[in-house]
């Protein structure tokens, strides 16, 4: 994994609460056997009409969304299935961070393993972000800070191990494999 230290980008805002993984990537696109190419299917049923034409009113189809790396969403983003295709689709599209007041457990885990930073903020910060689409934000992993264009900086929770893995580009499998002796000892006594 590439190290993830710092990100500066404008935001795309999707204020709905409970945006589930079936919206992020509908199930009919899950018959793939690779990780690549899912960005084209991201939010497919909101992004395209029944004939496959882009819906002009959907936020990702607007010119302002071009190049935005940060998605700001309503409460409980990523609920539903465990499909890692959801963060794969988001990163393949170009997103590197998701900000919400609450992010579903499995989605958050999956995101961290794919260099997609899940950022949980207080309702007041979220309200500001939802009201100011396109704001340029700065996210710093080492200090766990989100800085708004107003200069206000807020800290976000990030577990120490996940932070270390992001900063160093460490993959967790290497860490687990290094514990093989402990695992063998556990198996021997169990």
């Amino acid at each position, binding site marked *: 994994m590439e190290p993830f230290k710092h990100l500066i980008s404008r935001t795309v805002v999707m*204020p*709905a*609460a*409970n945006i*589930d993984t*079936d*919206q992020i990537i*509908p*199930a*009919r696109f*899950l*018959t*793939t*056997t*690779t*990780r690549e190419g899912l960005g084209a299917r991201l939010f497919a*049923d909101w992004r395209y009409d*029944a004939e496959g034409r882009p819906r002009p009113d959907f936020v990702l189809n607007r010119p302002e969304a071009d190049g935005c790396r940060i998605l700001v969403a*309503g*409460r*409980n983003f990523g*609920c*539903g*299935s*465990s*499909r*890692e295709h959801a963060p794969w689709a988001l990163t393949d599209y170009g997103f590197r961070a998701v900000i919400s007041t*609450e992010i*579903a*457990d*499995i989605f958050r*885990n*999956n995101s961290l*393993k*794919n260099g997609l930073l899940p950022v949980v903020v207080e309702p007041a910060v979220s309200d500001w972000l939802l009201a100011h689409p396109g704001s340029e934000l700065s996210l710093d992993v080492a200090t766990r800070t989100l800085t708004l264009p107003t200069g206000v900086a807020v800290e976000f929770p990030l*577990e*120490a*191990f996940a932070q*270390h893995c992001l900063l160093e580009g460490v993959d*967790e*499998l290497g*860490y*687990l*494999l290094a*514990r*093989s002796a*402990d*695992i063998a000892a*556990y*198996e021997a006594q*169990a």
Partner: protein
Amino acid sequence: MSASSGTRAGARTLFEKVWDSHIVSPQSASAPAVLYVDLHLIHEVTSPQAFQVLRERGLPVRRPDRTLATMDHSTPTRAAATLGGTPVAIDSAARQVATLEKNCAEFGVELLSMSHAQRGIVHVIGPELGLSQPGQTIVCGDSHTSTHGAVGALAFGIGTTEVGHVFATQCLLQRRPRSLSIEVKGRLRPGVTAKDLILAIIGRIGVDGGTGHVIEYRGEAIRALGMEERMTVCNMSIEAGARAGMIAPDEVTYEYLAGRARAPHGVDWQRALERWRQLPSDPGARFDREVHLDAAQIEPMITYGTNPGMVIPISAQIPERPGDPAFQRALDYMGLSPGQPLKDQKVNVVFLGSCTNARLSDLRGAAALLRGRRIARGLTMLVVPGSQEVKRQAETEGLDRIFTEAGAEWRESGCSMCIGMNGDLVPRGEYSVSTSNRNFEGRQGAGARTLLASPLTAAACAVTGRVTDPRELLNT
């Protein structure tokens, strides 16, 4: 010891006991715990990229003997004979199924393939084979792994990267979740099922009410549930955002598991029983949060919106939430209005299936209501057993004939219309009363409108072609 809170030092919950006994190395400020996995279930959709990682890094599956594969999501439910020689309806799905076959052969993982007599939905076959056992840790690249918590296991869904971790090390890196006790007193009334109970719970705590928590379902109403009903409850824990749902093992559990193909036998069974009897939460064990419900107050429940928390008693009206655009958007998608009753709403499709409600007792309940009746004209009803074993048992009892004589279609097992990956779809704009677990936009097909309900309610709706309280038909 604090007398006022009623908690006791050293008293542990069911969850804590299972968690503690699977710690390879404990969590610290700088690292999560390394948690050992007893049983790893896999299927065709969330495993290919994980096998690919093993291949790229030259790693074997560490414990193929603790790994079992099935195919369920993208497999067809029409009998092979009617498919004109193509075993899987959709090309990419056929590729995915073939990839699983190849991967399992290469890495030595046992696979219940298409023609296998014990194939089925991954969360139906685990308990059915007696593989899912009390006190175990069970994972699968699938969020409804919470189902297996019904036998007193700690069972939860993981992503594909983590599937790779378990392949390579039989372990996961995990921070300990918090615990939530949901205690249900009293008894469910006739015509009210485990599905109604879990929908009522989600309606109460919300679709994120369990986030960060493992739920333990407790109390008289839970104890009174049969094993398959307990699975229905635990299955939908994830719809409340919880990592897992658990129910303490008891005589119901042991009776269910005794004699199953892959449950312990003989002396091993006796030893297992001794261990399992230690698992229930100790008196005075402390939970991080507690919720209380009264089963006698619960009515048949049905969803009206686009997440399982948008649920009402079947005789109630859809709530009004002026000034909530997301709520209005969900109702627009559903073609419904605030304040309207759902009862008598026209229904086009009925789906009886999924890992929530496609076990033998679910089929029996629906068949009892359908016996001697016909489904409404123009309505499509699909009955999809949870496993090939459920299918065989149902056929032995003649349930398949009750369904087909009523005008329903009787299929091979699989996920089918629950997720719409195999060609079984609800047409755009149509209303489906489904016994599955997700009413998300497009879940059953682009533009499909899903109303989640129990097998009894689904059967009643099939008969009338309208949203119907099953008690009206059960009483006649």
